[in-house]
């Protein structure tokens, strides 16, 4: 087979797309995590005593030893900035007008990935960051109930 002669009039492709819509069940641990975030404004984790690990967000089972996790703990709203990035493209790959600050804030042996509200020049790995929550009336039980994290002042 050889290269076709380019002909702008020739039909060469068919276009199609698939709308994909899904529901994602939170599950036992997820439902509890998001209910407490919504109602009490708290971030909770779950503890595996055997592994000495605190999972944040809370989970129903330990990925290290497969134990069921039934011990819950409030880890507060202040964690440690483990790493961060400045994102210059949106979810579809288009350039952003305003670059977006994103960080991973460590709580226990887990943490929360979220947007950061800060001047990037002020950010340092290891600094304390606190979660900024939506007002209670606006919270729906989702990760977006957290608006983001900002440096503790």
């Amino acid at each position: 087979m050889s290269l076709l002669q380019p002909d702008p009039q020739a039909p060469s492709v068919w276009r199609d797309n698939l709308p994909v819509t899904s529901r994602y069940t939170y599950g036992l641990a997820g439902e509890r995590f998001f209910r407490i975030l919504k109602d009490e404004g708290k971030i909770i984790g779950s503890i595996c005593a055997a592994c000495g690990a605190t999972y944040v967000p809370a989970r129903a089972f330990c990925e290290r030893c497969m134990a069921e996790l039934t011990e819950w703990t409030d880890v507060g709203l202040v964690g440690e900035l483990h790493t961060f990035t400045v994102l210059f493209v949106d979810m579809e790959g288009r350039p952003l007008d305003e670059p977006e600050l994103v960080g991973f804030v460590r709580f226990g042996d887990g943490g929360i990935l979220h947007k950061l509200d800060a001047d990037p020049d002020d950010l340092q790995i290891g600094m304390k960051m606190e979660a900024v929550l939506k007002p209670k009336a606006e919270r729906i039980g989702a990760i977006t109930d957290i608006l983001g994290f900002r440096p503790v002042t």
Partner: protein
Amino acid sequence: MNERVAIVGVGWAGFRPKTPDLSYKEMIYQAAVRAYHDAKVDPRTDVDSFVTVAEDFHEGTSIADEYTPDQLGAVMKPMQTITGDGLHGLATAVMLVRTGLCRIVVVEGHSKASNILTLDSITAYAQDPVLNRPLRLNTHMVAGLEMNRYLHESGTDEEACAAVVVKNRRNALRNPLTSFGADLTLDEVLAGPPLAWPLGVHQTARPVDGAVVMVLANEQVARSLTDRPIWIAGIGWCNDTPSLESRSWATLPYLEQAAHMAYRQAGIRTPFEEIDFAEIDDTYAYKELQSIEALGLCGFGEAGALLKEGVFDLDGAFPVNASGGSLGAGHLLDATGLHRALEAVLQLRGEAGAHQLEDVQVALVQSWRGVPTTSGAVAVLTN
């Protein structure tokens, strides 16, 4: 058990940013015909089983594995599709031969990336739907976060990452199977547009189209078909947790495990001494350094300095991505591991052309399925 498995034929089509003239099936057909000619086998009579790697969302077709037999000569034959990287497909083929179930097995991987009009959205759909995806962030953020923490913990600097780009794109100038060969300076790479700071656009491989087909056989068949079989001395694979919340952001423990598995089979104890060269992950420039360390070629935090000294250059002590890698050739999506294995086979046969390395016997091949995965696969090949 048939202990040894060899690659007895390779074929490819591409690799280039666009293939408007060929459908994906025609591209695979070209690669397959080339591989069967190279191996001197007839797929309709000689091949016992076929393995394809493909991902439905990349194919634009549900149950895409049903569309793989015809262009390979696999109609009315045993055939399976793996959702994984090409090295996962290679591992599956090795197992089919080693059990004795099959004498000759074909592995195929391809990318028709130019037909994927929403690749970033598809990749974002791989994020955790409840914890991460609601933030509506481009998935390159995972690489930006990982690179920043890797630089922080390892003491590696941004210049070392830029040096990976300079090396690989310069190597690509010698390799006709590449699209992004260039003679760049460190400053040009560092001054390039940012993507997910500290990661820049120039430090990120761009997707290309192409197909790779390999023919594998057990030792007896291999020796009857060719006088230059390339042996798969070891192959390993491993995944870490998918959770962004509990993975390591600086190191690749899953790749260390995959390497241990492959090295154990190949009897390798000191990889830097016993292996001659490597074709490994450089989807993002920092990944090459992180992978060199996880593969045990040096200690944690040492790869950047060694790279700047020229150890991993084409004429260095241990050439890494002499082919130009994914930064130089482009990224072949699910076929990327097979692309690296192909480059290793050509080197071990002495057919690499202008980027041929001298006197090489043992090759290391490694791949990663890209963000947001924690998936590693490693193969050791010998001639």
